[in-house]
């Protein structure tokens, strides 16, 4: 597979809306919001229901999210015993995370301060290291190909997905486990984001609303199983959809703020569409980065105009963060899954909380209720194989922009 699409054969998610990818999509579609008291916490998540006492003790919360999401994805992909149906050396894993195991790290720093170096937990590093999730998944699922983590803040897991596509196209693997997870709702990290001026003062996530005042921190994880399409077909797997394109760019403008004109972000969107062989007019749905910050939502609106031209005013755009908040390194994967399920479900979930339009933001952000996905021709005109086409964008602190194109 030197070019073309990767088959998506399994997805899994743990989010503030609950456990499971379908739970994420269905509850969002129904307008349920998982944000409470100014954060998106996965309150119902109890790792002891899914993992042994030893596994729970040896994993930070972000690894637990990713582990459970990966199990769901592997089950859906029909990986018997959760092990890949390929030569283990031909199965890779690339996962996004921004900060890693912050709770253990800071707890143990306090132990160091209070009780000295000999009291520091010997498992501090293996449990908190940002690459802990791919390491744990390799033990759980038995793959032996390349594995690593990508840290690019809010774009981490979108970049991981893009890297998975590249690996399949370069025939470095038959299947790649991609996605990401984050769990950094600790007082220290929340304070650090707050003092950087990023967090919502009201505790409300209202993407594209005139009253928006910052993002709502969240936790969660999402995993996708990507396979070479012919190999997936060859083993009789159900193909849920396709990852057909990836594009990325870097603002080179500011450490945290996006460039308002959206030119560089827009370039990533166009690159992704070019990579997928899609014209802007073919995009049926945009899953926005949509953070609810003043700067992002304006820059993203401009980026969509740069990339899609007049079609930016036609295509429905909605923000998953409006119901789950911003899980940083997990966000891109959770949103890619939500995008896939939107295409499969045929219903575009709304941007919840968007009630007061901003006159500078003049696109169709799907306020209020869900709407039907625009109909596509069964085949031929404007639709390769009659598939619906969507983009999911991630724009990060650091100016890292990553966009994936998903079809179903």
């Amino acid at each position: 597979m030197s070019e073309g699409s990767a088959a998506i054969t399994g997805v899994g998610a743990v989010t503030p809306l609950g456990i499971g990818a379908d739970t994420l999509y269905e509850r969002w579609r129904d307008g349920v919001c998982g944000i409470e008291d100014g954060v998106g916490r996965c309150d119902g998540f109890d790792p002891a229901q899914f993992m042994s006492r030893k596994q729970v003790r040896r994993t930070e919360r972000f690894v637990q999210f990713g582990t459970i999401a990966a199990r769901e994805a592997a089950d859906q992909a029909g990986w018997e015993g959760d092990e890949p149906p390929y030569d283990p050396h031909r199965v890779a894993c690339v996962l996004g995370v921004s900060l890693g195991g912050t709770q253990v790290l800071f707890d143990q720093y306090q132990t160091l301060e209070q009780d000295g170096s000999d009291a520091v937990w010997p498992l501090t590093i293996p449990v908190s290291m940002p690459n802990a999730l791919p390491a744990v998944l390799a033990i759980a699922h038995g793959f032996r190909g390349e594995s690593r983590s990508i840290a690019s803040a809010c774009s981490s897991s979108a970049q991981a997905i893009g890297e998975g596509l590249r690996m399949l196209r370069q025939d470095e693997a038959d299947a790649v486990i991609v996605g990401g997870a984050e769990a950094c709702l600790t007082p220290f990290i929340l304070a650090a984001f707050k003092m950087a001026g990023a967090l919502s003062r009201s505790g409300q996530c209202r993407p594209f609303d005139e009253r928006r005042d910052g993002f709502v921190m969240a936790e969660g994880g999402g995993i996708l199983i990507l396979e070479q399409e012919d190999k997936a077909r060859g083993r009789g797997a159900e193909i849920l959809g396709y990852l057909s394109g990836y594009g990325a760019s870097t603002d080179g403008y500011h450490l945290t703020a996006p460039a308002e004109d959206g030119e560089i972000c827009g370039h990533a969107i166009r690159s992704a569409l070019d990579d997928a062989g899609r014209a802007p007019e073919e995009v049926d749905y945009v899953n926005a980065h949509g953070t609810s910050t003043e700067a992002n939502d304006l820059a993203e609106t401009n980026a969509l105009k740069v990339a899609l031209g007049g079609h930016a005013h036609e295509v429905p755009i909605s923000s998953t963060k409006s119901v789950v908040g911003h899980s940083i390194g997990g966000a891109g994967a959770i949103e890619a899954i939500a995008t896939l399920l939107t295409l499969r479900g045929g219903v575009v979930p709304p941007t919840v909380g968007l009630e007061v339009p901003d006159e500078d933001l003049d696109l169709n952000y799907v306020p209020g209720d869900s709407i039907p996905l625009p109909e596509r021709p069964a085949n031929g005109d404007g639709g390769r194989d009659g598939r619906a086409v969507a983009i999911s964008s991630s724009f990060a602190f650091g100016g890292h922009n990553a966009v994936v194109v998903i079809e179903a």
Partner: protein
Amino acid sequence: MELKTPPSAEKMGARILEALVEFGADPEMMSPEATLEDLEIDSLDMFELAQILHQEYGIEVNPDDFEDVKTLGDAQQVLLGYLK
């Protein structure tokens, strides 16, 4: 360095079992014949155990002493040997 009173063999043996259960080993499977592999006890557990024995009893555990250890009984023999 603070000098600590060495525990009795019985007390230290009980503390070792307690620690391994705390690390996640199945208490039902604990027996001298049980292999560390069956109990899912690995080198990270031994580092934790070494830390506990050092913190609580001032015992310095040498990881090299565990190279040939296969069973829980073997491990206990090595660890109790530090009391001599």
